[in-house]
């Protein structure tokens, strides 16, 4: 009994000792401040990039307005349509004919069927020439992804006329540059020192190119066009 009482007294004494003698460690001021900050956060601070947003938006808007204002006066790349591409390819082909083309009038009758067969463009009739101009060559060609036929004429003055026929059902010819020649209204152009006459015939795109560029020569070129156009009837074979 006495031992139990002693132990209880000891327990009480230890408890009192702990309460009275054990140092307490209050929270340091820095910890208190940190906890208060975490418990009662102030108004959220804006992130640094938010500060740059208004001037950035302003700068972008100003740049956009200036661009819209200046854009019309900036040189713009010309929009090249497919007719233009074919025309340029024909000019390149014509230039080759002028410089390196051969006059093979004697073999044209034999060359034509082969050209028709390989080009996919048939000819019901073809203008083979008269006193002013004559067909000197016929061969298959390939322009801007289109297989076609190329006929070369040579006039009495030694001018070469290249006549190219390619499938062109989806090629739209511009209204600008159209000229009434006889009963047709083809597009007539001068490009890089050459003359061009372009027209649509059924589902085919036909282009004639020549170095007849002066007014007088252009008149002759138009006459050749009338001869060719009225006496040639191409069609798509396949």
């Amino acid at each position, binding site marked *: 009994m006495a031992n139990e009482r002693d132990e209880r007294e*000891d*327990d009480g*004494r*230890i*408890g009192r*000792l*702990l*309460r009275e*003698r*054990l*140092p*307490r*460690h*209050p*929270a*340091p001021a*820095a*910890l*208190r401040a*940190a*906890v*208060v900050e*975490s*418990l*009662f956060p102030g108004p959220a601070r804006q992130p640094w990039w938010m500060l740059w947003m208004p001037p950035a938006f302003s700068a972008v808007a100003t740049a956009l307005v200036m661009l819209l204002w200046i854009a019309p006066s900036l040189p713009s790349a010309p929009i090249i349509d497919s007719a233009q591409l074919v025309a340029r390819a024909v000019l390149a082909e014509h230039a080759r004919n002028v410089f390196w083309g051969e006059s093979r009038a004697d073999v044209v009758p034999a060359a034509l069927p082969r050209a028709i067969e390989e080009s996919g463009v048939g000819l019901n009739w073809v203008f083979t020439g008269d006193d002013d101009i004559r067909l000197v060559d016929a061969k298959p060609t390939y322009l801007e992804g289109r297989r076609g036929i190329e006929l070369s004429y040579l006039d009495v003055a030694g001018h070469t006329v290249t006549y190219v026929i390619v499938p062109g059902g989806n090629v739209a010819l511009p209204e600008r540059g159209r000229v009434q020649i006889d009963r047709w209204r083809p597009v007539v152009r001068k490009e890089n020192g050459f003359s061009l006459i372009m027209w649509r015939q059924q589902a085919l795109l036909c282009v004639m190119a020549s170095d007849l560029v002066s007014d007088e020569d252009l008149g002759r070129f138009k006459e050749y066009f009338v001869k060719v156009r009225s006496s040639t009837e191409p069609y798509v074979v396949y």
Partner: protein
Amino acid sequence: MADDEFRQQALQHLDALHNLAVYLTRNGSEAEDLVQETYVRAMRFSHRFQPGTHLRAWLFQILRNTFLTFYRLREREAAISEDGVPESEAPMFHDAPSQDSESAGAHMDLERALAKLTEEFRTPLLLAEVEGLALEDVARIMDCPVGTVKSRIFRAKERLRGYLTDYK
């Protein structure tokens, strides 16, 4: 309980939480980290606190669980301070309240003796005797029956008595 009121009340227990944290971690900066983590968790799980129950006990419970989760592993390792003396035998703080040398010596002895107790004996002893919590609250914090708490406190005192022979 309104959120703001809850925060205000939670803040009132800061000193008590820090005191327990010091005796659990035996390291000033770790104690501060532990207290901050305790508040972060308390705010995160404030919706789980049942109004009308003991907020102080709930905060102690969070603190102890956080300690067990993040700090206990280190305590299991044999902690040796730089001078080669086991940390449990070294005074925890050198800036303890300045009193007369006899009293300071008593503090040191008491702290050393307390530090020798394992956490499962030290915590219920501190909560019950120093913080004055009811045994039921201590049992909830320790996640064990009240009988176990009584037993641990008894054994903790018994061991302390052994360490503090001067106070017998």
